[in-house]
């Protein structure tokens, strides 16, 4: 269940003077609910003060520099006992300080965040000590929840005994509590405002206060145990590079895979989506592909200076033409070593999937898998403590178009492990085995709270054949080339043609785009094909691939920056080192489409960003010899939208369904159905403040594509069946 304003079970606000008092709720708490206390030590501009954490509470944040003499604190008790109603507060400080407190009882909060990771912002009108008419909360970092609750707290100390009053909360916030104290020499007040937080992004709110007052505000964004979060995929492979050549070849950036054992193939047989699949086949041998945490070249799991991968969530799809005759390792994750990690395998005796952590007991799936069809596996591996756990699910028929979902399996858990971050993940067998398996549509993430990723498809997006590449700077700094080095004057059409072959031709007949002159700010912008998600799909993320070229040895560099029409991502890939390209090898470099893929920066790929998707190549600091690329590819991850009933009439004769992004809740499309007979219905709604109406004939299913980027785009939907006869 998502977190909504309904999860604020009760609240109260009050105040006291002196060194102690109680924060209270009108009714007893329900066991297990969280209690949040927000306290402001306000009034009296002549005395300093401080707030002590109440017994049993953890201090989330405290700001003691509020106008030098006041204090603000946020404290959380994660799990209250039944029927708690009062909590003692103690404060220090003299003069006429007033303690204004607010208490929220909240259910189903997810407090399993690293310290400080609750999106939080505290700001105060310090320094100038000028009384103001508005008080801003400041802007949080990016909140990645799609169904959280944002709570803003505002504090004010008047310049005299006139009581401050708050109003006009912006950005959709509304007041849920306010308290003032007519104290001398300075009156004071505190207010809480809240809203459902349904869009990934930063959060802020500003309130007006009258009369002008000294003040401050803070913002907290809570998320729920089962809240939906941005997908934030940080590892993707759909095999759409079309060749196994160069799978580990990158010099200055993640290769498609960081390591392989055996001879993996990229084949056109059994692609689940797109045109290609990864084929792993071995006879009494190990064969696998791996993503690593490494420095040179930088690994898909980041470098050793990046944030560690504290959890690993993945969706995989496997296909057997024939089930292996013996147990076969299919996937794994390591925390320092294979023994201190997770292994998933096919178990021949039962034809089931087994998951085992370390030397613990293997947990088998609840049913057998079948040959000649794709099955999907979702995992969430958590090695943060010495008891490693793995939530997992099996989608026994993951054929594209099949709507049956994954079946949750018994969580695997093993104690006595070594806690740490994930250092390697892989697909295939690390042990000698005889098997052939096709793998496709792989999506994974280091972000927590993304399980299960669920059904995904990885589709190839190539250079837009109808797009118009352009140069920023001087076009004379760039050339297209044919015959592996025959340069030609740069043209838009020539660029499109030169970059469109996937996989690229390497060697004597190779073509591509090159930068021939150092120009740190010049680049070629290359529009990519678009993909319209509505009415069937939601967009989840993507990964860039480009194959590099240099005209001779001792190569220079060429930098890559993706652009989504809103932001040019600063990848720094190719910026500082030789790219290692040459004119005889296929060397891939990749980049996850996220402003900061290894630092857990949330990113939501929207339709408008997809429409504007472009690659920028250039920015070269060393174009001697000429340095360039053969091709550029974007692997787009999409997810079938999920259908819910929104409204129905006359015992289900008339219906409106919504096809929705299962994470963001954004509306992909609406479907209206009418019964046989003579009565149709009118569907209507408001999208981006524009009204639309559509008549649906009798005995018809009509689908209205919406393609919303977020849940906020649609503000009304309705249906009116024809009058009865």
């Amino acid at each position, binding site marked *: 269940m*998502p977190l*909504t*304003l*309904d*999860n*604020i*079970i*009760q609240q109260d606000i009050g105040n006291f003077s002196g060194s102690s008092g109680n924060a209270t709720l009108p009714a007893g708490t329900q066991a297990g609910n969280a209690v949040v206390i927000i306290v402001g030590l306000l009034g009296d501009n002549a005395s300093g003060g401080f707030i002590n954490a109440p017994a049993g509470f953890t201090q989330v944040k405290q700001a003691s520099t509020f106008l030098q003499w006041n204090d603000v604190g946020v404290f959380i008790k994660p799990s209250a006992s039944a029927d708690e109603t009062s909590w003692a507060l103690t404060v220090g400080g003299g003069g006429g300080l007033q303690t204004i407190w607010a208490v929220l009882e909240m259910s189903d909060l997810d407090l399993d965040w690293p310290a400080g990771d609750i999106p939080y912002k505290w700001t105060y009108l310090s320094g100038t000590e000028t009384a103001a008419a508005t008080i801003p909360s400041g802007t949080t970092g990016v909140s990645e929840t799609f*169904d959280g609750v944002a709570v803003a707290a505002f504090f004010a100390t008047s310049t005299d005994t006139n009581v401050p009053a708050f109003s006009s909360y912006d950005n*959709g916030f*509304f*007041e*849920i509590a306010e308290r003032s104290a007519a104290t001398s020499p300075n009156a004071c007040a505190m207010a809480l405002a*809240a*809203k*459902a937080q*349904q869009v990934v992004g930063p959060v802020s709110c500003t309130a007006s206060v009258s009369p002008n007052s000294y003040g401050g505000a803070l913002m907290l964004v809570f998320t729920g145990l089962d809240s939906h979060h941005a997908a934030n995929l940080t590892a993707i492979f759909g095999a759409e590079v079309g060749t196994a050549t160069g799978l580990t070849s990158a010099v200055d950036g993640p290769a498609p895979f960081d390591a392989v054992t055996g001879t993996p193939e990229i084949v056109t047989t059994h692609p689940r989506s797109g045109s290609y699949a990864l084929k792993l086949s071995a006879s009494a041998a190990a064969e696998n592909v791996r993503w690593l945490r490494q420095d040179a070249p930088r690994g898909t799991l980041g470098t050793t200076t990046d944030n560690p991968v504290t959890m690993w969530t993945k969706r995989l799809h496997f296909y057997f033409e024939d089930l292996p005759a013996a147990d076969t390792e299919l996937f794994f994750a390591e925390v320092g070593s294979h023994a201190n990690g997770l292994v998933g395998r096919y178990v021949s005796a039962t034809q089931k999937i087994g998951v085992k952590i370390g030397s613990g007991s293997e947990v088998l799936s609840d049913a057998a898998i079948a040959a000649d069809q794709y099955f999907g596996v979702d995992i969430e591996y958590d090695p943060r403590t010495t008891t490693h756990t793995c939530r997992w699910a099996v989608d026994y028929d993951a054929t594209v178009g099949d709507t049956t979902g994954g079946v949750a399996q018994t969580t695997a858990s093993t104690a006595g492990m070594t806690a740490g971050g994930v250092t390697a993940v892989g697909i295939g067998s690390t042990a000698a085995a005889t098997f052939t398996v096709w793998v496709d549509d792989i999506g994974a993430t280091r972000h927590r709270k993304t399980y299960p990723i669920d059904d995904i498809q990885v589709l190839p997006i190539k250079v837009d054949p109808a797009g118009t590449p352009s140069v920023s700077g001087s076009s004379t700094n760039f050339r297209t080339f044919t015959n592996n080095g025959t340069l030609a004057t740069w043209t838009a059409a020539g660029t499109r043609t030169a970059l469109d072959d996937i996989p690229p031709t390497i060697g004597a007949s190779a073509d591509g785009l090159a930068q021939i002159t150092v120009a740190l700010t010049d680049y070629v912008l290359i529009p990519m094909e678009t993909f319209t998600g509505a009415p069937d799909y939601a967009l989840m993320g993507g990964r860039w691939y480009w194959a590099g070229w240099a005209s001779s040895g001792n190569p220079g560099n060429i930098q890559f920056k993706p652009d989504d029409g809103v932001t040019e991502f600063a990848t720094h890939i190719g910026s500082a080192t030789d790219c290692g390209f040459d004119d005889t090898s296929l060397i891939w470099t990749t980049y996850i489409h996220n402003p900061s893929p290894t630092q857990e920066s949330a990113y939501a790929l929207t339709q408008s960003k997809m429409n504007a998707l472009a690659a920028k190549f250039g920015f070269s600091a060393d174009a001697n010899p000429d340095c360039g690329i053969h091709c550029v590819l974007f692997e787009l991850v999409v997810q079938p939208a999920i259908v*819910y*009933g*929104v*409204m*129905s*009439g*006359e*015992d*289900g004769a*008339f219906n*409106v369904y919504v096809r929705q992004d299962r994470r963001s*809740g954004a509306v992909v499309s609406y479907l209206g159905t009418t019964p046989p007979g003579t009565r149709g219905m009118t569907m*209507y709604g408001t999208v981006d403040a524009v009204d639309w109406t559509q008549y649906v004939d009798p005995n018809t299913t009509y689908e209205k594509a919406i393609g919303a980027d977020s*849940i906020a785009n*649609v*503000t*009304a*939907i*309705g*249906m*009116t*069946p*024809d*009058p*009865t006869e």
Partner: protein
Amino acid sequence: MAMPTVVGVGASAAGQAAITPAFPGGYTATADDIAVTFCETESGDTVTPPTGWAAVTNVTVSSGTVTRLWAIWRRIQAGDTAPTIADAGNHDIGRMIIVRGCVTTGNPWDVFTTSTELVADTSVSIPGVTTSVPNCLMLYAVSTGQDGSSSTTAYSAWANASLTNVTERMDNYTALGLGGGFGMATGEKAAAGATGAMTATLALTANFKALMTIALKEQVAAAATPPSTYLVRSQAVNRSYHY
């Protein structure tokens, strides 16, 4: 030709189990009266109409403060008692209105509309419909998922310039479970046509809203039976015409 009239509104019932919204106080089941019970539940919960009852419509808000608004109905028969509505899930709250003078066969409504207002504010505008017959009693309902702490003053300032006799009939919330409730007002639309939007003000905090509007149509008096001789003549004329 007469406008359907409100006989009365029963007491609301709320629970986290089965509920029994009552008949209006003192009401004795009278054949052909129309009972409409509005219910509010969490978005994923379901109201199953009791035996002999049927669904008019339902509408779901599944984000923000989630809510689901239901309308179920029955053409009353003598001896009926207020039925029990099975446990819907997290919580359920329901209330019944009895209307007299509606059409005595088929669905008692001329037209209805169901919609959402996915804007968190303290005003509401419930879309109207276009009636195809005169003398419709209009029922405009709105629900939110707010924990209303048994509020009965959530709505005020019901207004619709296209109707006469706009009257609040229901205004009930519960704090049970995740809480929620609804309001409902009636108005009269004498001439067929657009009934206009009904607006109201919420005293509770801003919420997304589930909305519905139902036009209950009158029982049209039967035409006077023509003399049998006229009928025979008429049939003869028709027959001769076809020749």
